[in-house]
């Protein structure tokens, strides 16, 4: 494919490709997102390909494997267009029937349709499924329209036209001004106004400047950036090139965490294609702009999601953050002006340029404009990636989109913002998804991870979990984080093991505030949030642990006891076989018992019993 040398040429080619797609062929779309990969969607796709090739469809039916559609819980997903029929949890063995009945004869395979639990009825088309209906998937919906390995697909849906628009007469100041008017704020957790960052970087002194895409996505429970990077990598590239034009940079980096090898491949392939087509390299689209982007891999350190640590890592050093008395927009990578933005932030740029600032700012709230992709996980029926306009209530996300709690249990809280965020109780679910509102309540939207918790989750244990995580990931340079987080963990552990006291609760608050104010970097500064927010909203759980030595959710191992109910146990012996500590005794078909001295409360017996005979209290 020879380079596209001018904006006119891009227009022509784009139009040709768009026209080529809008024929009458039946299209089968298989979701190839992270969740579906794990449930073997590629086996399904391979079967479909085989069926198509061997049955003489001759172009009247096509297959496209795309990036993440969002409904991971229902994967593998196959959508048949033009009727928009949605089949979920498809297995390779189902493929022949789908091709014979649906593709050939237009018949529906009822058992593969999604069943709405609230009505008990099946839903035929993707757009009527409640999970999708309550969303505003402006960015995520692009995924299902393209094969992420295909540049042509991206061009066919208008790819790189935003770049063309910018290079055909918008000055850098105009670009920044449009981003400003849109109200775009960083999607990585900081929520910093993007235009302000770009303007400061533009104004900074320096011949060589850089743009960086932060794809480190270290928050446990978050995989939105993975969904975009593996589903629509060119949107990110296009955004970065536009950003580079705005600040005056010619070089960019995409820093991908080590745990995402597939995302690294996608990024590399997209860059290679962009170079081939002339969107990266010299004299882009005949504008005179030169630009190149490289991929760098992380080494496995959460702290490298912090901008100064990320830059240290790009320089080949250990990922230790440095004090931000000097801003990275002035002295960043190699001490030069650098604009670092999150994957989702970059991916939003092309649409803002093409559709205008008003289109973007028309969605959302006063101070939080546009949409946000959330990773909805935990104890909720519908898990996956969802995109909502800012201002949507947490309740809508958890109940309408998420379908409510699992296995009939009551939802108790949501945890947002990863280890830097906090937990909000169900009573506050009317709060909107909004940067400032959630921050004010002691949590934050963060990168977008939203973990749903129910009555079987112990909130003190959640605080302990996050403190352990941060202790593991702390770089260790500064005292408040290295020692302070460790001491917070020591106190919370005491509480979960029945040694807590109310003086300790006061100490938790005081130490938490000290760490928040004095730590060197964002990791340390926000480390106390999980424990402080759980103390604020779930004091009764802390109280139960401290004064009654009881864990209401039945989680904290030192405070619970496992036993087998004499009535429900049927002596099947499943628990006996499963127990790694050999703590269960019993004869076949007779009541089994647990030896409390050997029992480590690991919970494995609980998952093995089919009759709910294991009791935890």
């Amino acid at each position, binding site marked *: 494919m020879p380079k596209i040398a001018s904006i006119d040429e891009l227009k022509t080619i784009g139009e040709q490709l768009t026209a080529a797609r809008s024929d009458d062929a039946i299209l089968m779309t298989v979701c190839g997102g992270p969740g579906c990969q794990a449930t073997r969607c590629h086996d399904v796709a391979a079967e479909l390909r085989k069926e198509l090739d061997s049955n003489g469809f001759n172009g009247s039916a096509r297959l496209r494997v795309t990036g993440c559609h969002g409904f991971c819980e229902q994967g593998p997903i196959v959508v048949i267009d033009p009727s928009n029929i949605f089949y979920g949890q498809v297995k390779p063995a189902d493929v022949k029937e789908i091709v014979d009945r649906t593709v050939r004869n237009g018949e529906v395979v009822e058992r593969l349709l999604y069943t709405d639990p609230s009505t008990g009825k099946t839903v035929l088309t993707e757009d009527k499924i409640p999970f999708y209906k309550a969303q505003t998937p402006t960015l995520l919906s692009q995924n299902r329209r393209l094969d992420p390995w295909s540049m042509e697909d991206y061009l066919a849906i208008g790819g790189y036209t935003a770049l063309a628009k910018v290079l055909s007469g918008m000055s850098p100041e105009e670009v920044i001004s449009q981003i400003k008017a849109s109200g775009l704020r960083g999607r990585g957790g900081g929520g910093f106004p993007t235009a302000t960052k770009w303007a400061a970087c533009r104004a900074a002194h320096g011949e060589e400047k850089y743009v960086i895409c932060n794809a480190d996505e270290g928050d446990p429970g978050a995989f939105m950036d993975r969904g975009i990077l593996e589903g629509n990598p060119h949107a990110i590239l296009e955004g970065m090139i536009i950003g580079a034009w705005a600040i005056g940079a010619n070089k960019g980096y995409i820093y991908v965490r080590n745990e995402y090898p597939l995302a690294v491949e996608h990024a590399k392939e997209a860059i290679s294609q962009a170079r081939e087509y002339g969107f990266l390299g010299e004299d882009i689209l005949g504008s005179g702009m030169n630009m190149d982007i490289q991929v760098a891999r992380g080494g496995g350190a959460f702290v490298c999601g912090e901008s100064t640590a990320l830059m240290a890592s790009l320089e080949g050093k250990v990922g230790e953050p440095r004090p931000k008395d000097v801003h990275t927009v002035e002295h960043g990578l190699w001490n030069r002006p650098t604009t670092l933005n999150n994957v989702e932030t970059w991916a939003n740029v092309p649409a803002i340029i093409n559709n205008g600032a008003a289109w973007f700012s028309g969605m959302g709230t006063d101070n939080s404009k546009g949409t946000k992709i959330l990773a909805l996980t935990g104890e909720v029926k519908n898990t996956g990636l969802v995109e909502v306009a800012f201002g949507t209530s947490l309740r809508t996300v958890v109940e309408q989109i998420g379908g409510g709690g699992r296995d009939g249990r009551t939802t108790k809280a949501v945890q947002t913002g990863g280890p830097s965020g906090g937990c909000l109780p169900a009573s506050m679910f009317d709060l909107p998804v909004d940067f400032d509102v959630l921050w004010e309540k002691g949590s934050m939207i963060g990168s977008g991870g939203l973990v749903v918790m129910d009555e079987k989750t112990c909130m003190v244990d959640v605080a302990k979990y996050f403190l352990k995580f941060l202790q*593991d990931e702390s770089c260790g*340079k500064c*005292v408040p984080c290295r*020692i302070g987080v460790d001491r917070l963990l020591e106190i919370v552990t005491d509480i979960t093991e029945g040694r807590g006291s109310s003086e300790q609760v006061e100490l938790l608050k005081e130490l938490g505030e*000290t760490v928040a104010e004095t730590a060197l970097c964002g990791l340390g500064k926000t480390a106390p949030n999980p424990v402080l927010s759980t103390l604020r909203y779930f004091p009764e759980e802390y109280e139960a642990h401290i004064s009654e030595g009881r864990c209401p959710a039945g989680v904290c191992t030192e405070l619970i006891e496992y036993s087998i109910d004499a009535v429900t146990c049927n002596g099947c012996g499943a628990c006996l076989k499963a127990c790694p500590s050999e703590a269960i005794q019993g004869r076949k078909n007779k009541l089994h018992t647990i030896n409390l001295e050997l029992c480590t409360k690991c919970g494995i017996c609980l998952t093995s019993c089919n009759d709910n005979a294991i009791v935890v209290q």
Partner: protein
Amino acid sequence: MHQYVDIVVDGSKLKGRKGETVLDAALRYGICIPHLCHMPTLSDIGACRLCIVEHIKNGRTKITTSCTLLVQEGMVIDANSQRVRGLRRNIAELLVTQAPNSRAIQDIALRCGVTEPRYKFRSDDCVLCGRCVRTCNEHYNAHAIGFVGRGRERQVEYPYREKPASCVMCKACVTLCPMSITPCDGPMKPGEGYFCGKCESLTQAPQYEPGDCTRCDLGEGFDCARHV
């Protein structure tokens, strides 16, 4: 020839030299802001967080380390507000309960207002101030020791935990170490550390007041800024 800027620290007008930090300027004027990892002639890393001050700008205050804050014209700093003292005390409390077996550390804790530490004592041998590592790298360019590991596991180590050829046993690292040169006579067993509050500088002071200096010998090897 120095260029000067006017700054205000704790209500006093100082002439800061362009390119120096607020901590350097304050120490030059004899304003003692407690610190541990700072050493003249070594780079400042802002690791111990003891030297924090309030940087007052546009009616808002920001807590930041004075060793990493460069002086600027018109800067207003409060190094001794109640808020700063409270935070500093909590940080010193963390330090002394982590590594109590050093008179220098006990002294710092006392000067920062720690009276009864609220955490269980541990007996670490290192406060990770980084003086040794920075001396070895920056003065001698030997790179014989470095910080290895993350978080709680972070330790000063040789490469492969074996003394390399580049270490010529100059002992510069030892002479700067607050743990090695001012060991405390107190118990060294884990969990049995304690805060006696009686190191030299205190026993010589008729009346304890944070910021007072008694010109004790403790400052000599430790290169305490007050021993100027």
